[in-house]
C-alpha cells in the first residue's frame, strides 16, 4: 500500500481538518465529532443531514453549503458513521423547521441513522428520512434488502437542498427527495480495486483484462466479472440496464451524472460521456444538464458510474437552482 497519509487510524480526522482548512467559508467542524456543518451555523429552514463512510470524497462534506446539505457525518473509511455522531449533526443543524436525513440504502447506514433518529425524536426534534436506492445493478427481487444507494444520491442532495432553500416545509422537502429517488437510476463498473488504509491491501483483485460490473461504492464485489470492453460498449451496457429499469421516452428531459470513482482520469469520463450523449440524442431524450467528475468516489478505485435523473418542471427548476458548496458551485 502506497498512500499519502500519516497513520491509518488518523486519516478521517486529518482529512476533516484539511477540508475545514481549505473551505472555511463553507464548513466548520463540530468540535469532538466527525461532522461538518455550514460555517454560518443553523438557519431557519429545513435542514438536510447526510453522510456515510469516508473515502467517498468530495461526498459528503464537499456538498455542505447553500442549496445542498447542512450537515455531513463522516464514518470510518467505508463504514457508516455511528449514531452518536449523526445525532450531534442533527442537533447542530436543526433550525427549528425540522431535519431530513438522506440515507443511502446500505444496511449499516440505515441502522445507524435510524438509531440516531430515535435519539433525536426523543428530544422532540421534527425529523424525517429518505433512503436512496438508485443502483440498478442489484437484482430487484423480493428477497433482497433492496437496491444500493450510490452516486444518484447527489441529485437528492442537490434538489431537496434547493427546495429547503426556497422555504419548503419538511413534508415538501421530503416530497422532492422522494420524487428524485423515484426518478433516478445509476449503475457502476470498476477496472481496478481500491485499498482501505486500515486494511492495507486491495479489497478485491481483478486480472489485467477483467472488469467488475455493478460493484458498490465500497469496493464490495459487483454482480459479475467479464473481459474488459471498449468505453462505448461499457456505457451501452450501463445505460441498457438503467433504461430497462426506468424507461425514458423521446422528448422527455433528464440530468446526467458521469461519476468517477477516484482513480479514473477526467479524459476517460469525458470519453464515456460522449457515448452517453450520443445514445440519449439517438433516443430523442433532452439533457437539461450534465455533470462529469468525481462526486462520490471510492478511494482510488478505477471506474465510473452513470446516473440518469428523469425531470419534470419542478425537478428541473430545482436542479438548475443555485448551489454554493466546496464541490458543487452553480449560479
Amino acid at each position, binding site marked *: 500500500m502506497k498512500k499519502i497519509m500519516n497513520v491509518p487510524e488518523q486519516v478521517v480526522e486529518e482529512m476533516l481538518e484539511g477540508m475545514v482548512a481549505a473551505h472555511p467559508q463553507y464548513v466548520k467542524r463540530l468540535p469532538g465529532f466527525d461532522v461538518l456543518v455550514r460555517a454560518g451555523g443553523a438557519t431557519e429552514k429545513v435542514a438536510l443531514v447526510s453522510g456515510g463512510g469516508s473515502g467517498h470524497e468530495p461526498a459528503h462534506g464537499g456538498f455542505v453549503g447553500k442549496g445542498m446539505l447542512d450537515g455531513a457525518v463522516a464514518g*470510518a473509511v467505508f463504514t457508516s458513521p455511528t449514531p452518536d455522531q449523526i445525532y450531534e449533526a442533527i442537533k447542530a443543524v436543526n433550525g427549528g423547521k425540522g431535519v431530513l436525513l438522506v440515507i443511502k440504502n446500505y*444496511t449499516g447506514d440505515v441502522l445507524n441513522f435510524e438509531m440516531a433518529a430515535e435519539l433525536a425524536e426523543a428530544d422532540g426534534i421534527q425529523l424525517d428520512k429518505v433512503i436512496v436506492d438508485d443502483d440498478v445493478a442489484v437484482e430487484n427481487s423480493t428477497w433482497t434488502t433492496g437496491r444500493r444507494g450510490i452516486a444518484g444520491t447527489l441529485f437528492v442532495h442537490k434538489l431537496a437542498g434547493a427546495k429547503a432553500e426556497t422555504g419548503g416545509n419538511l413534508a415538501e422537502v421530503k416530497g422532492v427527495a422522494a420524487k428524485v429517488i423515484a426518478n433516478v437510476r445509476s449503475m457502476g463498473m470498476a477496472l481496478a480495486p481500491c485499498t482501505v488504509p486500515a486494511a492495507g491491501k486491495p479489497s478485491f483483485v481483478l486480472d489485467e483484462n477483467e472488469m467488475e460490473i455493478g460493484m458498490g461504492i465500497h469496493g464490495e464485489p459487483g454482480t459479475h466479472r467479464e473481459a474488459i470492453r471498449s468505453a462505448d460498449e461499457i456505457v451501452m451496457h450501463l445505460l441498457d440496464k438503467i433504461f430497462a429499469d426506468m424507461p425514458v421516452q423521446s422528448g422527455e428531459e433528464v440530468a446526467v451524472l458521469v461519476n468517477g470513482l477516484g482513480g479514473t482520469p477526467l479524459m476517460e469520463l469525458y470519453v464515456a460521456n460522449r457515448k452517453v450523449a450520443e445514445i440519449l440524442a439517438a433516443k430523442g431524450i433532452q439533457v437539461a444538464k450534465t455533470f462529469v467528475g468525481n462526486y462520490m468516489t471510492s478511494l482510488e478505485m478505477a471506474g465510473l458510474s452513470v446516473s440518469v435523473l428523469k425531470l419534470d418542471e419542478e425537478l428541473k427548476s430545482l436542479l438548475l437552482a443555485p448551489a454554493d458548496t466546496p464541490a458543487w458551485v452553480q449560479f
Partner: protein
Amino acid sequence: MGDLAAALIAVGEAIIKNKQYLTDLDSAIGDGDHGLNMARGFEAVVVKLKTGTMIQEVGAIMKLVGMTLISTVGGASGPLYGTAFLRAAVPSAGKEVIDGQTALLMFQAAIKGIKDRGKASRGEKTMLDALEPAQDAFQKTFEAGKSLPECLHAACDAAQQGIEFTKTIIATKGRASYLGERSLGHQDPGATSSFIMLQALTQFCDGSKEAV
C-alpha cells in the same frame, strides 16, 4: 469489575486476534471491513473494562459494552451487537452474578434485540444463523439440568455448525445480499464473529471453572 469483566475482555481479545480473518471473510462477500470494525469497537471495550471503575453490577457492565460498541464500530455490526448487549443488560440489571437462568434470559434478550434492529431472521446468512441455534442448544442443555459451562459448550458447538450452514445458503440481508448466488460457498463473517465471541466465553469459563 470481576469475572464478567475478565470474561468480556477475553471475548474482546479474541475478536481483536481474529481481525484479519474476519476481514478476509468479509472481503469475499461484503466490503471487507467486518474485522476492522469489530476490532476497533472491542479495543475500546477492553480499554474501558480494564480502566473502568469497579462496577460489579452485570447490567451496568453490559450497558457499558453495548454503548461503547454502538459509538465505535459503525457499519451494521455496531448497532446490531450494541443493541444485543444493551438488551442483555435488562434481565441482568441488579445482579452481581450470572446464573444459568439469567444467562438464558440475557441470551434471549440479546437475540431478540438483533432481530428487532436488523429485521432479519434465521436462514438469511447473518449472525443469527450462529446465534439462534446456539440459543436453542443452550436452552435445551439448561433445561436438562446441566451447568452453565456445559450449556455454553452446547451453544458453542451449535454456533460452529451454524457457520458451516451459512456456506450453503444465499445471503438475503446485509451487503452480501447484493451478491445473490455469488455469496454461495462463503462463510458469513457476522456468524463467524458471533461464534468467536461464544467460543472465547466458553474457553474463559473452562479456565475459571466458575460461573461468570
